[in-house]
């Protein structure tokens, strides 16, 4: 493939590995550079991956210590508190995926982009790389108008968030405002009394907390929904592959059907490989689109959410290839 390597920073962490593996699975010829602190681990992983190499990285230098090396895009699979890797991408006009920013903390990246708008910046602080949001957007096509969307992620106790995401959530809880949601047309920071359980199939419920990720910001405009929220809870989920726990995301949409009835429908998306793999697949679809690996032209410079990059119907059709299962569940 005649393309420079994708620079995957933090490429040996749990999420970084899954991103690399899915990029490799879908694009055998795409070169990947694994940047990580531990060079031994990075080289080992690059070797297993194939068509990949490893590099050290110096976050105290504007060129990250990568002087002279060429890349096609930058994906930081770690929380870059100084946004130095985005500045690096801007210096080289490379597309960039920002994975860790909750709804309340996007300002520094937005300011950097506003001042230098000549790269593609995907704000992908959505849950699971934006896949649940894209599936919801696709399901919204079954409605004439959408009133409310609720996304609910059910984490199996044996499949916790990876350490990086856990740290992100801790930071959000400590420093951030309450979770942002769209409530009846108004942007609201949800107080504790607004928490609600995730409703699963068959009338079962899981206690949950709302999460202030960027999904509501991405979903309100293309659906016209008046209420959008995102909840996270913990409960045993459907069994995954090889005895491992799976991961489950509930999508509930209330709206008017094409024949004029107001209905509530609920779907379940499951990943037999757990929550980290789920998220990595979302990142990979965005990376493909930014680079134009899907056969369409590469994304133009600009500020993006996943909803403005990907086509919802295409994402839904792609789910089997991503080993994700989508099924409607009974409400009662």
């Amino acid at each position, binding site marked *: 493939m005649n393309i420079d390597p994708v620079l995957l920073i933090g490429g040996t962490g749990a999420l970084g590995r899954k991103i690399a593996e899915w990029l490799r699975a879908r694009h055998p010829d795409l070169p990947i550079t694994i940047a990580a602190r531990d060079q031994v681990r990075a080289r080992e992983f690059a070797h297993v991956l194939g068509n990949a190499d490893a590099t050290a990285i110096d976050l*105290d230098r504007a060129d990250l210590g990568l002087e002279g090396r060429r890349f096609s895009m930058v994906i930081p699979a770690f929380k870059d*508190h*100084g*946004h*130095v890797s985005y*500045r690096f991408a801007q210096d080289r006009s490379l597309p960039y995926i920002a994975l860790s920013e909750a*709804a*309340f*903390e*996007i*300002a*520094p990246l*937005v*300011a*950097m*982009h*506003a*001042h*230098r*708008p000549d790269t593609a910046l995907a*704000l992908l602080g959505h849950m699971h790389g934006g896949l649940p949001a894209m599936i919801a957007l696709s399901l919204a096509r079954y409605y004439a108008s959408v009133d409310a969307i609720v996304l609910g992620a059910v984490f199996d106790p044996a499949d916790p968030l990876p350490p990086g995401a856990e740290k992100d959530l801790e*930071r959000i809880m*400590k*420093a*951030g*405002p*309450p979770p*942002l949601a769209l409530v009846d*047309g*108004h*942007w*609201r*920071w949800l107080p504790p009394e607004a928490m609600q359980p995730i409703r699963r199939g068959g009338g079962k419920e899981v206690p949950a907390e709302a999460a202030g990720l*960027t999904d509501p*910001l*991405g979903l*309100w*405009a*293309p659906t016209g929904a008046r209420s959008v929220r995102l909840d996270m809870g913990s409960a045993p989920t459907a069994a995954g592959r090889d005895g491992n726990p799976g991961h489950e995301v509930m999508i509930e949409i209330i709206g008017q059907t094409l024949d004029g009835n107001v209905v509530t429908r609920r779907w379940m998306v499951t990943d037999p490989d757990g929550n980290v793999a789920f998220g990595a697949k979302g990142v990979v679809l965005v990376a493909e689109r930014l680079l134009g690996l899907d056969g369409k032209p590469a994304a133009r410079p*600009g*500020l*993006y*959410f996943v*909803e*403005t990059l990907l086509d919802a119907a295409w994402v839904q059709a792609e789910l089997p290839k991503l080993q994700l299962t989508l099924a409607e569940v009974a409400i009662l």
Partner: protein
Amino acid sequence: MRDAPILLIGGSGIVGRWTAKLLRDANPEAPLLIGGRDLGKAGQVAAEISQAEGVAVDLGADDLGLGDRSIGAVAIFLKDDRLAALRFAQVRGVPHIGISSGTFEIGPEVSAFIHHPRAAPVVLGSEWLAGAAVLATLHLARKFARVTDIVIDAVLDEEDIGGPAADIDMHRLTQLAPAALTRREGNFHWRNGDEAKAVIRAVDGEAMEAFAYSPLDIAALAAVTHAPNIQLNVSVGMSSNRRRGGPMSTEIIITLSGKTPEGGPHRERHAIVHPQGQAPVTALGVAMMLERLTGLDGKPATTAGVYFPEQLIDPDAYLRRLAAIGGSFTRMEDAR
């Protein structure tokens, strides 16, 4: 768009009235619409200004209750949590300026831009006093090859009535998200608890208790200067001017440290003071942004995009005009 009126929503409030006055003084022919919930009050304010008309604005309606009235630009002086005014501006393809969002609150506005990037200019104008501190900092930064530390200390006199909208903003911003964004050794960080407390030196040297606050200044200054250390503190109390028996005033004390082009260490400490308080200073930023966006300044109107104040206003031009409306920008003795 230059001939269509500029709509000031919340235009009968104190900052809105100042904005209308400054726009009128510099642009005698530009038509203005003073928008308020209460048509009577908006009409009264409009009557004091030539070429201005009062209108009732309904933020619960998609057309803001304005029907098919022609509009050239929208500035809003209160928090609009439905984004009604922003969506209206995008549908009309005209610029929108908001100045009431905390750093943590810009998500919905950014989202509106991301979903319709080619609709209109969207200005994230919620820097301290609509760009005053950032613009003055950027003016000073020109003397440096590299800026390492930026400290912005603002004194808001407790008698400096920002009007109910400003009071609501500050209450919401400090209650909802007590942590304030800062940049420390290159990393963005939210100051919280004791870390968010500070003692600042007012213009007269008086030590005043202050708290960390995060308008968009931190994000904007980091993007432009790449300074690794940036903080902003606000003290609400008695301004220096009032302490010595004068009227209340607004103060912004800006300290920059770094290296000169010759490589030596350098430090600059300057203060903005306006003896009529924060309103004229905030209004100046909004007025100059509106002049740039609409092309009232004689240059082509701004194209669609997401903007911060310093992308629309030249720092030197701002400081000249600040002086012309009674403000000052002066070098201070170093308080170290």
